[in-house]
């Protein structure tokens, strides 16, 4: 056992690190949390575009992609090494992840060669931003319950309906979308997958105000929006199969919840007063921090085990499936801890302390426990796919979609 890179890996890491040092600032050397502007602001978007383009020009943007689309044909492990090195730098994050992580692989697998050459390089370069249009008001965890309609009209399809929870729709250029082309077929058989120009006539985007006060998600309305049949990904009726590849990817690979962790809780507890002594002296606090530390360490070492498997050329086990459910719940617990530690004053939004980090964790974690697969869905996936337990009996099997009870 060792935590060392092989010579080849060390060389690759040094290459990543050298480029990053010349092009970005280490987080540890920046005092400002948001040097790129507030997430979602025009300045932030600009900073994100500039950073993405810089990475693309040097080959790092989608380093695992084929060279003809702007990648470096890097191995999965090299991709992880790049991610580890980039994580040390204060660079704008969040604008491109969904497009590159979800639309990218679908386009790679299902688009024509001509489309790939047209769309993939600008996607990687950040010149065109992509979003994902799956969820609907009545199709959340049960994504296959979606109702947006597609009707064939000559060489086009006409789309009507509503999508929701679409991150970044307000500034996206293209989106991947799954819609229902035939409600008379079985639920999973009646769907078809497309990519769509988000500037098409008939698309109306309305931001959703979240409990954090921010608006990173949107409702997207489709009124007689035309999509050329050439933008269909997969066969007519294959929509679910195309969608599920990306969904599984999202549900299992959504990473650590960002924000305060055991280390921050520990530092906080050392600096807070608790009835005349340091909060860290409080037995209950010590036990809680020990729990969070073990969870954080467990997730970190789980990733290292995954890397070890990749390093040996093996396929990693299903261990990484626990990441989001553990980290989002941990974040919520730590948020509560920090706020409660100020007792009655914990309610105050004050710049006099770093309590806002805990406020953010407390509010944000409530969303993280839902986004990218709820705790409940993720546990179902672990139970069914990892442990091999049977699926729930379903009330929607063998029925035409239009005949499935919907509660409305």
């Amino acid at each position, binding site marked *: 056992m060792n935590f060392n890179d092989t010579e080849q*890996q060390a060389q690759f890491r040094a290459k990543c690190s050298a480029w990053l040092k010349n092009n970005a600032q280490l987080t540890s050397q920046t005092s400002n949390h948001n040097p790129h502007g507030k997430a979602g602001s025009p300045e932030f978007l600009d900073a994100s575009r500039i950073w993405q383009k810089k990475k693309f020009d040097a080959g790092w943007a989608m380093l695992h992609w084929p060279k003809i689309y702007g990648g470096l044909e890097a191995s999965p492990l090299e991709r992880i090494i790049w991610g580890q090195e980039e994580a040390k730098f204060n660079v704008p994050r969040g604008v491109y992840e969904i497009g590159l992580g979800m639309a990218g692989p679908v386009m790679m697998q299902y688009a024509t060669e001509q489309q790939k050459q047209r769309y993939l390089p600008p996607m990687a370069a950040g010149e065109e931003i992509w979003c994902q249009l799956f969820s609907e008001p009545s199709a959340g965890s049960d994504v296959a319950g979606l109702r947006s309609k597609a009707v064939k009209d000559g060489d086009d399809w006409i789309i009507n309906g509503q999508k929701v929870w679409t991150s970044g729709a307000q500034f996206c250029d293209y989106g991947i979308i799954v819609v229902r082309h035939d409600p008379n077929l079985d639920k999973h058989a009646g769907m078809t997958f497309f990519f769509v120009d988000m500037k098409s006539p008939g698309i109306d985007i309305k931001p959703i105000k979240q409990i954090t006060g921010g608006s990173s998600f949107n409702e997207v309305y489709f009124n007689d929006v035309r999509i050329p049949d050439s933008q269909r990904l997969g066969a007519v009726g294959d929509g679910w199969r195309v969608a599920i590849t990306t969904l599984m990817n999202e549900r299992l690979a959504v990473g650590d919840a960002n924000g305060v962790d*055991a280390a921050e809780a520990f530092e906080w507890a050392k600096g807070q007063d608790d009835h005349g002594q340091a909060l860290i002296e409080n037995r209950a606090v010590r036990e809680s921090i020990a729990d969070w530390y073990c969870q954080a360490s467990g997730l970190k070492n*789980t990733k*290292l085990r995954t890397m070890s498997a990749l390093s040996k050329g093996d396929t990693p086990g299903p261990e990484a499936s626990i990441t989001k459910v553990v980290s989002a719940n941990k974040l919520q617990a730590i948020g509560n801890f920090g706020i409660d530690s100020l007792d009655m004053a914990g309610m105050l939004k004050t710049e006099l302390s770093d309590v806002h980090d805990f406020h953010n964790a407390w509010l944000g974690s409530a969303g993280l426990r839902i986004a990218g697969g709820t705790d409940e869905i*993720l546990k*179902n996936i672990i139970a069914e796919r*990892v442990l091999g*337990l049977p699926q*729930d009996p379903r009330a929607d099997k063998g029925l035409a979609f239009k005949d499935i009870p919907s509660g409305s």
Partner: protein
Amino acid sequence: MNLDFSDDQKLLQSEARKFLEKEQSLQRSRSVLDQQQALDTDLWQQIVAMGWTGIRIPEEYDGLGLGHLELCMVAEELGRSLAPVPFSSSVYLFTEAVIKFASDEIKQDLLPKLVTGECVGTLAITEQLLAPTAQNMNVTVAGNTVSGSKIAVPDAGIATHVIVLCKGQKGIELRLVELNEDCNVQKQDTIDDSRGHFSIDFRNAQGRLLGDHGEGWALLQNLLDQAAVMFSFEQLGGAQATLDMATNYAQQRFAFGRAIGSYQAIKHKLADMYIKLTLAKSNSYYGAWALSTESAELAVAAATARVSATQAFNYCSQENIQTHGGNGFTWEYDCHLFYRRAKLLSLNVGSLATWKEKLIHGLEKTQPTNAQQGV
């Protein structure tokens, strides 16, 4: 990057597993419990014959000269099969103490005998019905004579030697005592009688010093840090066994016309077991790395492994009973054997609260590296 065991180590594990299955270790554990035998002597002798007690003993003392990683692999299998043998006390605690702290003369004497099974050792710490501290040790040593009483000492019935935590003139020290007529050993009833625990009265027993006068408490902590990693592998093995049992049962048991494993209440319970087990496994691998490389991170790594492994086995064994419903509460089903062993292992080298405290104490002494590595 290699946070994994080698192919050779995994082969040793798979051989250990096959052996313990063939020898019906779990059934033997039930039988020891039923008959209050303290251990299965036949299984123990076979384990000795396989050379496992000498895994970490250098070849110059007739051992196999392998490392802690090999020991961790065997530990996982002993935990999975609830082996009713004095392995943890004699190997993770006693043998390690002799290797680390004893004089050459003692090593020459005892290590070859630990390989052959002629010598079996244990460690005596607890004296009262509370957590042991450097302040509440009352077994005294005067000259080389040890007097006083210890309780909850594992495997003292078969042990030939015991390392005793004593109060000396300069503070706590470790004394190596040969169990003879000066030591009155009595079996104690415990929550898991598949593993024997004993009280020992020392009446002017001769004890040889291990380490220095006054450094016994520090040596003990190091010994426990090491042992905690190996205990965590026993706990992992047990937790995996209970998760497997619960999963099988949930697939086969029907209620309201369907397998109970198709209900989300059961799925989520089993997913929680898997989550806790996975965290514990990854942390135990980290502990094994720290142990095998003699890392300065051992204290924190061992506590992290120990806390998560205790949480995992406690949770998995308790929810395994719950998943089995009424059957899980019967003596006939094996669920309670794991429930007992989980609790016993969670106490053997110190409770959950004790190890959480050790973890935070360790973090206070060193800066945590977790947040900085950006992994």
